[in-house]
């Protein structure tokens, strides 16, 4: 489903994003990507999204070759991926409902389908009652739920989350992480880059640890520091 083969990402200014990274993520896995600031977590996710391309090595995602892809294919790669960011990235002038529906309009879904799927996605993240609210009327945790609903509404096979709880307090972070777990239980592959030590330790998922762009540990049922 996702495969990195000896991937190195060097930015144009010479900074190392990722260094000789190899790993495979199978369908249905839940993976934490951890490491100090600047260790390459976001770079790893950006490579999956084709926001960046590898300098060396090969990246395969859902049958697409990221290292060798036509520009016109990018939208179709991304339609199979849901993305959640630390800063939510909602459209401030659209309601919660419209923010989620927007994701379906963009992929030219049937209006009937949109009317059916949007409430399902909102219910899944527990925001049915806030459908008519605007993002600035919501708490941070609620906004992140909207962005999760938007990421899920097109039924992506992979969900990428880059520090989804970075702006949230611990209790809300916990809720969001367990929501991601629930989404994973339904069959979606979930990859989360995070600094949440206690949650990573508590949830006992696969953990990929990065340092200076290198994979230093890759452990099933691992913990944040991965020092046994």
């Amino acid at each position, binding site marked *: 489903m996702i495969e990195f083969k000896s991937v190195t990402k060097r930015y144009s200014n010479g900074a190392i994003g990722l260094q000789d990274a190899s790993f495979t993520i199978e369908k249905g896995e839940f993976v934490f990507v951890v490491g100090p600031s600047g260790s390459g977590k976001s770079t790893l996710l950006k490579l999956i*999204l084709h*926001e960046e391309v590898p300098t060396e090595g090969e990246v395969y995602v859902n049958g697409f070759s990221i290292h060798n892809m036509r*520009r*016109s294919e990018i*939208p*179709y*790669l*991304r*339609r199979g*991926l849901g*993305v959640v960011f630390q800063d939510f*990235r909602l*459209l401030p002038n659209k309601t919660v409902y419209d923010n989620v529906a*927007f*994701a379906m*309009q*963009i*992929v*030219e879904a*049937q*209006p009937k389908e949109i009317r059916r799927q949007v409430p399902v996605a909102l219910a899944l993240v527990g925001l049915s009652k806030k459908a008519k609210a605007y993002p600035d009327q919501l708490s941070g945790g609620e906004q992140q739920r909207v962005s999760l609903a*938007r990421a899920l509404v*097109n039924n992506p096979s992979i969900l990428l989350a880059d520090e989804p709880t970075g702006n949230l307090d611990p209790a809300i972070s916990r809720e969001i992480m367990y929501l991601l777990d629930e989404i994973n239980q339904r069959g979606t592959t979930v990859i989360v880059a995070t600094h949440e030590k206690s949650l990573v330790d508590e949830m006992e998922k696969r953990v990929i640890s990065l340092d200076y762009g290198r994979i230093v540990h890759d452990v099933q049922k691992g913990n944040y520091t991965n020092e046994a």
Partner: protein
Amino acid sequence: MKLRTIKYMIREGFSNTYKNLLMTLASLTMVISSLLIFGIFLLVTIILSFNLKQMEKQIAEVVIWLDKDIAPLQADDIELMLKNDERVLKCDRITKEQAFAELNEALEDPSLLEGYTPEFLSESFRLRMKDVAQIDEFTEEIRAVTGVEDIDFPKDFLDKLSLILKWINAGSMFILALLLIISVSIISNTIKLTVYARRKEIGIMKYIGATDWFIRWPFIIEGIIIGLVGAVVSFVITGYLYNALETYINSEAVISGMSLIRMLPLKDIGGQILFVYIIIGVVMGTVGSIISVRKHLNV
């Protein structure tokens, strides 16, 4: 592309045009001022070359002199040939007697002609051409006809005039193209501001998997709307100014009894001007939008 997507894009295009009213007005002002500059220049060119053509027509008189001792029947034949020639607009035959009378009138001292008869003059034809451009070819042919002694027309002057017309045409094409490029870059800079204001939205659309064209179209529609509205407004202003100028020139002509410049009636060129405005407005809007979105699509 699906019908509902097209509907969605048109709706987005219109609602964005309306929502960013300030930007829309700014772009609109740009389009209108560019079109007006463009239009004024175009009109000046059209009127100038029209007037030069008129002048060319007035000046382009061809005089064909016949042999002095030509048989009257042969002269009749030549007259018939000239009158039947498709290139000839008008042909007057000047008999020896008429020429003599004219000469008599032209001279200050008629006694100079005492002792002469009209016989010492040649008969001639005075011609107007339908198309001045054919004058060289036509006179070459006629020169070869037996009985024709000589042909007179203001060749140097006409050559200069047609050269001037050519330069005016080439120069105006060049300046019009230049104006167009400047206009496109001005409007694309204005649209860039609206695109910049919506770069977050564009980024989100890209992450969700929108195609480039899906993102571009609403902006293009916005550009087209602005271009069309700008074209119509510019046309109304141009028409108003043109009519005012025409009235002024005509009233001047009435007072002074003559007119240096002739204006074409607006109804004759209005359709063309509107057409040109719409084409340019729409092209400016479309190209401007495409240029301004381009940078933000590379996510």
